[in-house]
């Protein structure tokens, strides 16, 4: 299948860069909301990958169906995550990730 892969070398590079940006965001931030934003960026990278895969293999209908489903699922995840973040804020009074180390013995 390397023939299909060839077609969009440029896309590969940028997908990986986008994913890296997302991961870096999650790892380096001290703010809970930014963690969520990083998660979203990673998901976008995966979405783009699926779109490109669908285009290259000619299975655009499948790829689109997958993406539509995936978007719905991710919205629910983000909504719940936002709920957790807001509750954490209400408990801790801050959005700092430093507050999250209470559980270690």
């Amino acid at each position, binding site marked *: 299948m390397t023939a299909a892969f060839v077609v969009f070398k440029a896309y590969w590079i940028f997908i990986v860069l986008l994913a890296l940006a997302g991961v870096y965001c999650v790892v380096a931030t001290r703010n809970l909301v930014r963690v969520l934003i990083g998660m979203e960026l990673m998901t976008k990278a*995966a979405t783009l990958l699926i779109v490109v*895969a669908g285009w290259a*293999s000619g299975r655009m209908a499948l790829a689109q169906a997958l993406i539509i489903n995936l978007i719905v699922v991710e919205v629910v995840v983000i909504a719940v995550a936002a709920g957790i973040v807001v509750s954490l804020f209400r408990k801790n009074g801050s959005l700092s990730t430093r507050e999250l180390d209470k559980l270690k013995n």
Partner: protein
Amino acid sequence: MPLVFVLVPLIALLAINLPLGSLGKKLGFPTAALLALLQIGAVLFAPGAWANPSDFLGGSVRFAFSADRLSLLLLLSIGIAVLGALCVARYLFRDSKSEEGPRFFNLTILAMIGMNGVSLVSDLFSLYVFLEITAVSSYVLIAFERQKEGLEGAFKYLILSAVATVMMLSSIGLFVLAVGDTSFASVAKAVAEGGGDWVVLLAVGLFVGGLFIKGGLVPFHAWVPDAYSSAPAPVSVLLAGIVTKTTGVYTLIRLSGSVFANAFHLNLVFLAVGILTIFVGALAAMWQKDMKRMLAYSSVSQVGYIILALGAASPLGAAAAAFHLFNHAIFKGQLFINAAAVEKQTGTRDMDQMGGLSARMPLSSWTSVVAFLSAAGIPPLAGFWSKLLIVVALWKAGQSGFAVAAILASILTLAYFLMLQRKVFFGKLSERFASVKEASLWLVLPALILALVSIGVGLFFPLLWDTILVQVAGI
């Protein structure tokens, strides 16, 4: 048709959430319990009835759920674990006027739908969807009491789980590229034929990596102790007993059997990760002061055993893994119920402060002894048989070194459990707890039943061998 395992709970869920006033509030627990019981019954008494695909209306509506023996075993485990968790939850939500109870039971039913779906799908993307259903329900359940602890545990689980999700989605994208389809059948074909194609290998690697995170395998196990120990008592039972097993481990058993079979030394990866997980989990467990955290690390270690069994890359290995999964659901679920009882009655989880509780809480103590013997693999309990099978599978596959290591690790398991027993139940009765009583029936009865199941399965194993395991092995 297997669809019922997903559809019936869903309909029940919608039904009890219609605005029926105060009636609706009371229906939560009975409905959930009934669903779990029906599930157990359906698997035990009518195993052959679920083989047909889910066809409605002459094939125009077609759900791709299929149930083979492995799925049935998982469905059984799910039913049992959920029932146990429900009993603990029922005790927690005794106050029938509160709003919280019904919502908790809703979430439990949702988690059950998710897990049932995981066991029945035959497509990678559908697998992702149902994994996320289970995950979302779990996040909310862990954070249910909205205390700092639970929220933190839920958040950590969420972050790592999101990374796992992205890995799995990327893998699915790569499969679309390489294969044009995401169903198990197509992917299996592609892996078998195009073994050397690096796109396919990368896809397999990403998916398996994502599942390692979800299952709490080393080195991705960081979220497990936090999530398990900070969750409310019934949720810990649910999590340890079945959620992590379904999302991480069952999926690996299913995929390694037929879909990703023989992909480029996958079994070596399993061997390495498995043995590492067993030891890291066991060693960490010895250092813990908090009862639930110790049990959490113990779970990590036991999951390592299951993955190690997959490293044998044989049907026997897969059957051993599945059996250990079932046993783990039973004994770990039960241990967390015991922990809930202890926590309820003594008000603490710090094992250094406890001691001699067996005098005051005899039922909880003795059932926990049964559970830990099963976990350590002592005959004639069920755990002994599953560990034996794992060792035999490894030996037969030529991985004798790992087999020996697994046996050695059992000694470690025995060690930390003995520590737990000594600290909590035996030894001198501490002053503070002199007036502690045995926990309520809701917490003791399930523990008792689960302990009996461990003993029963252990004693009757030779009989069960034919009916259950040979079938599972022929996946």
